[in-house]
């Protein structure tokens, strides 16, 4: 039911893209590139929420994790003069933030919402407090065009002429889709998220699985943060994640807790942004940008209200696991 609905919309959008491509090649590819670019940090951040929730932990601290790793990535790269070390700094900070969150939300069985809130507030405070001006990245991240594929019409310039993080994001999505649904790890993770008691009975260490998954998800937040400061913006500003960690939650839900679904949702919201700013730039219609920006959130609430029951989070989300 829902799947058919989603497919219909996807097909309509694709047809629309093809049509606009025949009308104006350059505008279409540039708007699509914008959409992909807008989607990349959101999609990686959505994977953070997805891995956590599939394990039964709701993570509203993604925003803070992104901010901290973007900060560490940028200043790490600036201080060491190496983008690679900067990236590692970002991912490492993400892992630390993930472990801190897991310590509170899993090991200490603190309320998961409070743990996430703490991460957000601490990240905002620390990154503003320690922000220092005048740091510059040693280089800009390389753009890697994939031979042959890049020459394809439409998809070539959009998909196959990007920075490394963009490819990484696509690989992460496919990897997680496979991992979650085709491997033992995925089975265990989903079991822990859906029915921890049963998982425990069958010999899965619920607490350990959750701790590890939430920590590793923090590493993904590190990738997204490093992407933001090192590749996408090339700089760091106070509070510059601008709510992307929360949008990522919307995207995760919109994608029905499914990596590929979330990817599609992120692209869809990217497309609305790209089209809206293009309409503004071309002075066609001036849609108040606020309406475009609230779209992901409004649609997510509508979706949750309408298809509640059919789209639902993993059953054990939000509840610390207590052995009976």
């Amino acid at each position, binding site marked *: 039911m829902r799947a058919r609905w989603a497919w219909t919309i996807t097909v309509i959008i694709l047809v629309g893209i093809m049509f606009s491509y025949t009308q104006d090649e350059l505008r279409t590819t540039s708007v699509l590139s914008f959409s992909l670019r807008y989607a990349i940090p959101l999609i990686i951040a959505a994977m953070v929420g997805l891995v956590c929730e599939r394990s039964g932990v709701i993570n509203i601290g993604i925003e803070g994790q992104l901010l901290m790793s973007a900060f560490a990535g940028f200043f790490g790269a600036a201080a060491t003069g190496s983008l690679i070390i900067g990236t590692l700094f970002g991912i490492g900070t993400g892992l630390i933030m993930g472990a801190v969150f897991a310590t509170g939300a899993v090991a200490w069985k603190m309320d998961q919402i409070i743990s996430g809130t703490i991460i*957000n507030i601490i990240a905002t405070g620390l990154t503003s407090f320690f922000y220092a001006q005048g740091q510059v990245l040693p280089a800009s991240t390389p753009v890697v065009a994939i031979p042959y594929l890049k020459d394809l019409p439409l998809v070539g310039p959009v998909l196959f002429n990007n920075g490394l993080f963009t490819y990484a994001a696509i690989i992460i999505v496919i990897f997680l889709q496979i991992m979650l649904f085709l491997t033992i790890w995925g089975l265990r993770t989903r079991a822990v998220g859906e029915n921890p008691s049963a998982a425990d009975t069958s010999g899965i260490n619920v607490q350990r699985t959750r701790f590890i998954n939430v920590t590793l998800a923090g590493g993904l937040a590190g990738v997204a943060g490093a992407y933001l400061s090192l590749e996408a913006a090339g700089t760091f500003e106070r509070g510059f994640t601008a709510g992307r960690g929360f949008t990522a939650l919307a995207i995760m839900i919109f994608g029905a807790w499914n990596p590929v679904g979330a990817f599609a949702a992120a692209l869809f919201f990217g497309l609305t942004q790209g089209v809206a700013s293009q309409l503004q730039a071309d002075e066609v219609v001036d849609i108040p940008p606020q309406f475009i920006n609230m779209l992901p959130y*409004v649609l997510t609430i509508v979706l949750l209200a309408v298809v509640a029951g059919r789209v639902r989070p993993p059953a054990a989300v939000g509840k610390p696991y207590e052995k009976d």
Partner: protein
Amino acid sequence: MSSDGPAQTDLGFTDPNPTLGPKYGVVKAFAIPIVSVLLAFAVGGILIYFQGVNPFTAYRVLFESALGDSDGYLRVMQKSTPLIFTGLAVVVGLRVGLFNIGAQGQLIVAAIGAAWAGYHFDLPAVVHLPFALGFGMLCGAAWASIAGVLRAYRNVSEVITTIMLNSIAIALVDYLASRPFKEPDQPLSRTPLISDSAALATFGVIPSGFVIALIVSLFFGWFLIRTTEGFRFNTVGLNPNAARYAGISVKRTIVLAMAVSGALAGMGGAVETMGVVGRFEPAFNAGLGFDGITIALLARANPIATIPAAILVGILRTGANSLQFETGIEPEVVDVILALTLLFVAAPIVSRYIFRINAKRKSKSKGRS
């Protein structure tokens, strides 16, 4: 656990009725927040020390500027007022087992609503004041009710919906202030000033909004503990299944509690507009809603305890700029201190060290961790 009731959250205050609790509860209610605040100050002091400033000087400056003169008192009260309301909003939600992290959104929606009611109408003060205040509360309640209804009837997590509603609220008030409600003939995205008849007065150094906040929190101290409805709130929060068994309508209670919570946050926004700012203007929302979470937890979900908790946060926020003025420490250090406070209040480490015996019992019952 039933999936159609609110998730049970262990926030460390499982005792719903602090006045009836054993001595342990009373000590815990005071000791943990105090120790947490002190610990946060200690860690904050280390940060300050590494910026090359004596932490004791820094804290002295911070408190002196907030509590040194009548102007300081006025500002602390002004800053604490919306915080008491957002703290209460979170507290009411917690009592029913709901996490209202949307106080921020409810507050700004109510703030612009009260501003509109305040400038758009010309009424005598006796009517205008309650009307503008009530309209703001209504906006906040309506905004929160979206989450309440979805929670009660569609079992959608109120955490997710209130996060979404926060973002929508920011965009919405942004739009309203920059287009339909914009003050004409000037460039800023702000509403016109409210009429004098809708302005809350300040008596000497005491803003009337602060007095309202005190009365409201005392009222909720009574309401949650002494009334039937309050009993329903607590029962639903503690065990929705038992509540249902006892004939309490869980759905109705959830919707009502969320609306009350939103109305409280909304009152914070309305009082801020009517008593301090006088209009809705850019940067109206300086994180007031999120401080509410810290305050509610610091108050351990006790409505009356939100008063000292909010005043503490108000003092820190008031003193932050003087800290920069006197020592050069960036005002964001206050955010770090507040985050650490929240961490220590919520984390079991503090309570474990304070109540070793109890902690031992507790950790045993919870299995290895």
